[in-house]
């Protein structure tokens, strides 16, 4: 169990690094997907090793996958909007929320 949790922790850290350092909005979204997957691995690991009767962790992981899909849809639509308005998807230039 330690190995699975350690794997998820390292994956989460890599995703965190990507979110903090990426300039590209799509790169940030991809790193976000890595972090979602780390959380999913944790849920399924706890479900297998601690909850012996029941599949609550796996059901939560399914919901996380669905919500991540919805988030990716809306996020990429927003990326298209940013691209249309700023002619680029560099996060350093997108600091203005409204004007």
């Amino acid at each position, binding site marked *: *169990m*330690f*190995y*699975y*949790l*350690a*794997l998820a*922790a*390292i*994956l*989460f*850290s*890599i995703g*965190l*690094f*990507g979110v*903090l*350092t*990426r*300039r*590209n909005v*799509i*790169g940030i979204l*991809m*790193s976000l*997907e*890595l972090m979602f*997957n780390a959380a*999913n*691995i944790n849920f*399924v*690991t706890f479900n*297998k*090793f601690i909850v*012996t009767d*029941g*599949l*609550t962790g*796996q*059901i939560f992981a*399914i*919901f996380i*996958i*669905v*919500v*991540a*899909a*919805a988030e*990716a*849809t*809306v996020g*990429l*639509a*927003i990326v*298209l*909007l940013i*691209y249309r308005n700023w*002619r680029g998807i560099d*996060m*350093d230039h997108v600091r203005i929320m409204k004007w």
Partner: protein
Amino acid sequence: MDQPQVGLVFWILSFVMLVSAFMVVSLKNIFHCALFLILCLFSVAGIFILLGAEFLAAAQVLIYIGAVSVLIIFAIMLTSNLASKKITQTNENAVVSFFVCFIFALTTLLLIGNTRVWHYAAQGAVKDNTLNLGRYLMTEFMLPFEVVSVLLLAAMIGAIVLARKDKS
């Protein structure tokens, strides 16, 4: 790690996953990053199979690799004037955030390693994983199931509204 084959498969999968995840956050070409993301999600599906969650592995392949990755690749292609150039893809606080993430990973690993409660042995695999999952979704988790379908509908309509060209 009850059997040696399972351990071997686990190490291979985790090696592939971590290397490709690192490629996702470090490569300059954003398109290669998306392809490595697909590889990473595949190995996560393999880990799910190792953990006895077959339905979740199938859903991972279908939704993440089939839908989300294709969506990301489409977005990269639609916005390709920045993505295709070999500009630097990281901002100025890369070194600081590398140390932050390294320390975060280290403390998390120490926390996991030092917690005796979590050193459980593997339980037996739940029989009829998919059957039980469907049964739970239709009885105990009925309300979240319906709510999440409404959420998907809202996300779809929202994406269409956002990405539509303005008529004005």
